[in-house]
Every structure is written in structure tokens, then in C-alpha cells.
């Protein structure tokens, strides 16, 4: 296993006082060269990904062992939660369920309406993403990179690039997958960028992780940009990775310097990046390109229709799409069909994890 050690044993047979195998300097040179070669290979070439996956698989039992103490502590902690506390929580939760049920009913209605409207626009149904609940195995042990390892991997159909969210917002993106675990790079990592939109005015931008302080940066925005403190950033969904409408961060600080044409904007992520135990991994939308082209086509169509409308009146647009005017007349006919498309993923999700209002809302929008 270790060349150095075995050489050592051989050397030890000789009864020499100062014999220690190859000199420390030789070993230093050898292993330094080896490390440098490894670093170069790993950072520039892709040869080591499969080796890394295999080794991570070997490491998995150790990780489980290392996680055992904290899990045991947590479960005993839960066990000793007092009766009173549970009762209180229970009544609170019941109230919450009631409130959420009411809003869910509204959401169903909205989903139906949305489906009908999409039908009118020729747009493809936005694919409802399937998602997997994963538990955090450990938070990265490296203060430089913001990464977490979760207990779902290739065996659970997690793919590289999938988005990770939790109850309160986007957490990050899957950057490496191993057989039974995967690595998620958090949105606060320096190497991760996420396309966002200001919720208030729909302004699109890209947020970059700062790599420290658990904050995000919004660079390259002009000094007079319409962003205020407290503005909410949501995913714009134009990247085909993150579903649109998920909360990402809140703007906490805007400063403009006279010598810089750009505003310095700092945001704090809303997701429980540092303290959530579970994350939901949302699989990539399956067919991005047809969806995009369809959207473009409909955009063109609607533009044409809009251009045509003033001159030829509403009759012209009605003539160009006679088949699709019907659903407006009778949306009720479409109803029994639409819920089937929308609801299955929602139930799948609820089986996995209790829905929070945020997610439910988002999902219904899809």
C-alpha cells in the first residue's frame, strides 16, 4: 500500500544506526512531484473522475460511521422533547395546515387557469420536475469552498447539474455525483453563478457567490439600477437548471462608489444554507430545447398577432388560430384533462416531504 513504509521495513533489517530507507529529501522530492502531477491531472484533465467515484464509494461506510454520533444525539434529543412542547407544536401545525389548505385550493384553481392560458398560447406544458429528498451527510471540511455532501447519488438518479433547494429557497447545484452520494456546491461558493430576477420589478441579473461570509454578489449592474434594500431575488428559470420563481436571496446592502460605474450589491441567501439538514434535489428539466423553441415560436406568434391586431382587428387573430379559440369559450371542458398533468408531481412531492407554502406555490405554477 505504501511504498515508503515497505522500503522502510527492508531497510530496518540492516542493523544500521541511521538507516531510514531513502533519505527524507529524496522522499520529499518524490512525493512532491507525485502530488504536483496529481494536482495538474485533476484540475486540467478528466482522468480522475472515475477513480474519485470509486474511492468515494469506499469512503461511504466511513462517512456513515462518522455521522452516527450526531444522528444518535439528534434522535435522543428528539426522544426527550417534552409532551407539552409536542402538543403546542401539534396545534400550531394543525393551524398551519388549515391555512395552507385554503391557499392550496386557490392554487389548484390558478394552476388550471395557467394550464388553459398556456394552451391558448400554444406553449408546451412546463415539465414538472421530479425531485428527490436528500439528507446532508456532511458540510465541506474546507473553509475555502462551500460544498456539502448528501446521501443520494447516481443510484438514485441524481445527475450533475441538478438544482438543490430547501424549504426556504435555493441552496445550490449538484456538481459531482458518486454512486451513493453527491456533492452540492452552495450558491455562496465563489465558482457558482445563478440567474436571478428581482421579484419587485422583474429585472434580470446573475448572482455570484462571494466564497465567504455566506453572501452573494450582484456584479456588473449600473450604479443607478433599480434595486433597493430588502428586494427579493428569485430564480429566473432561463438557464434551464433552476425552476423559475424560487427564492434565492434578499438584498442587504447597496453601495455606489463615485469611481466605479457599477453598484456594489450584497445579498444574503434565504435558503438554510448553513443549518438545514435536508435538501430537495430537483432534476433537470428533461427537454429544454424543444421547450425553448416552442416559447420563441409562441412569442413570435403573439408578436405577429399583436402587430396584426390593430390593423385587422380581433377577427384576424381569431382566423389565424381558429382551433385554439375554443378553449376560451369552454374552459370547463379542458378541466378534467388538465389536473392530471399538474397534480401527480405534487402528490409525489408531498409523499417525500411536507410542502412549504413556497414550494407548493412554485410547483403549482409549473
Amino acid at each position, binding site marked *: *500500500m*505504501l*511504498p*515508503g*513504509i515497505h522500503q*522502510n521495513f527492508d*531497510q*530496518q533489517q540492516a542493523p544500521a544506526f541511521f538507516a*531510514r*530507507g531513502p533519505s*527524507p*529529501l529524496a*522522499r*520529499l522530492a518524490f*512525493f*512532491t512531484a*507525485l*502530488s*504536483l*502531477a*496529481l*494536482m495538474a*491531472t*485533476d*484540475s486540467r484533465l478528466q482522468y*480522475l473522475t472515475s477513480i*474519485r467515484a470509486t*474511492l*468515494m464509494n469506499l*469512503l461511504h461506510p*466511513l*462517512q456513515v*460511521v*462518522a*455521522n452516527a*454520533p*450526531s444522528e444518535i444525539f439528534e434522535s435522543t434529543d428528539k426522544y426527550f422533547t417534552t409532551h407539552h412542547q409536542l402538543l403546542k407544536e401539534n396545534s400550531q401545525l394543525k393551524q398551519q395546515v388549515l391555512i395552507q389548505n385554503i391557499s392550496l385550493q386557490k392554487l389548484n384553481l390558478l394552476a388550471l387557469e395557467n394550464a388553459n392560458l398556456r394552451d391558448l398560447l400554444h406553449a408546451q406544458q412546463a415539465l414538472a420536475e421530479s425531485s428527490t429528498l436528500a439528507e*446532508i*451527510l*456532511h*458540510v*465541506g*471540511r*474546507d*473553509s*475555502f*469552498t462551500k*460544498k456539502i*455532501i448528501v446521501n443520494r447519488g447516481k443510484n438514485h438518479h441524481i445527475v450533475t447539474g441538478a438544482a438543490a433547494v430547501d424549504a426556504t429557497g435555493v441552496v445550490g447545484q449538484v456538481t*459531482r455525483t458518486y454512486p451513493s452520494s453527491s*456533492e452540492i456546491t452552495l450558491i455562496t461558493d*465563489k*465558482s457558482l453563478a445563478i440567474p436571478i430576477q428581482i421579484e419587485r420589478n422583474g429585472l434580470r441579473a446573475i448572482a455570484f457567490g462571494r*466564497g*465567504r461570509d455566506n453572501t452573494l454578489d450582484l456584479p456588473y449592474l449600473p450604479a443607478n439600477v433599480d434595486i433597493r434594500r430588502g428586494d427579493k431575488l428569485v430564480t429566473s428559470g432561463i438557464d434551464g437548471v433552476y425552476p423559475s420563481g424560487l427564492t434565492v436571496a434578499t438584498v442587504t446592502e447597496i453601495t455606489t462608489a463615485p469611481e466605479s460605474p457599477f453598484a456594489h450589491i450584497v445579498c444574503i441567501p434565504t435558503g438554510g444554507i*448553513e443549518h438545514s439538514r435536508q435538501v430537495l434535489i430537483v432534476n433537470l428539466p428533461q427537454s429544454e430545447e424543444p421547450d425553448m423553441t416552442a416559447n420563441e415560436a409562441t412569442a413570435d406568434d403573439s408578436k405577429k398577432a399583436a402587430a396584426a391586431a390593430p390593423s385587422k382587428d380581433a377577427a384576424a387573430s381569431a382566423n389565424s388560430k381558429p382551433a385554439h379559440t375554443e378553449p376560451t369559450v369552454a374552459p370547463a371542458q379542458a378541466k378534467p384533462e388538465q389536473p392530471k398533468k399538474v397534480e401527480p408531481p405534487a402528490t409525489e412531492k408531498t409523499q417525500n416531504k411536507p410542502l412549504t407554502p413556497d414550494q407548493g406555490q412554485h410547483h403549482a405554477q409549473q
Partner: protein
Amino acid sequence: MRNNKLKSIYLSLLAAFIFMLFPWSGLALTLRPDFMLLVIIFWLLRAPNQCSVGTAWFMGLWIDLATGGIFGQYALAYTITTFIAVIYQRRLVLFSSTQQLVYVFSLLLVSQLIILILKTFAGNEFTGWSYFMPSLTGALLWQLAVTLGLNTGRHSRGN
């Protein structure tokens, strides 16, 4: 005897690795000492024939794997650190416990500095002075172990 020693070396290295794998986060992560390097330094002083630069390099690779960083960063840092440790290993028998503590602290600091340099090359930013806390806590842990009666090689003739 040597087999026994080898076994305890491997077991302690494994234990250190599991300690590194614990789900550290937040303040605990900032304060977490480098258990692996501490154990390696300990065995370098106690059993330089069984545990050497190669062992450190190999364990560094595993740490690299666990942190998810580029392969070879920790391996290189441990290699250079252990090299320095090996050079001074014979003089260490004469060190007082305070001198030894300073020596261990500077070794931990060296390994952190090397990792900092490598990470900076890879495009990361310095995360603030709290980055060096693990060296301090590592030295404290070392002192604690010595106080509790761990023989750190200053009287290794008896073995």
C-alpha cells in the same frame, strides 16, 4: 512488537480520519484542529521508521478525497510538513515540552500556509485570519494530550 505498533498506527490514523469526517459546521469547523496531521506528527516522533513522508502523503490523498478538493493539495502539504518534522525529529528528544509545543504549532501552521498558497493558486480567496485557528486548537489539543500522559517521543528510548 512492531506489528502491534503498526496496528496502532493504522488504527489511530483511521480514527483521525473518521474525526475529520464528522459533520463539522459553523464555529466547530473554524476551530476544528487537523486531527490527521496531529496523529501523523505524533507517529513521526514516536515511530519514524513506520510512519514517514509516504504515510503522510497517502493520508493527505484521503483528506483530499473527503474535502472534495483537487487531488494532491493536502497530500503535498502533509508531505512538506512531515519532511520538516523528520529533519528535526532527532533533535526533538532534547526539546522541553514547551519547545515541543511551539514546534508542533509551527508545523501545523506550515501545512496550513501551504494549503492556503495552493488554494489561492486555484482561484480561492483568503477567508480571514480565523483560517489559522485550527493550528492554535491543534497545538492546544497536543498540549492536552501531553498533559494527560501521552508520550510524545521525548523519552522514546524506553520503547
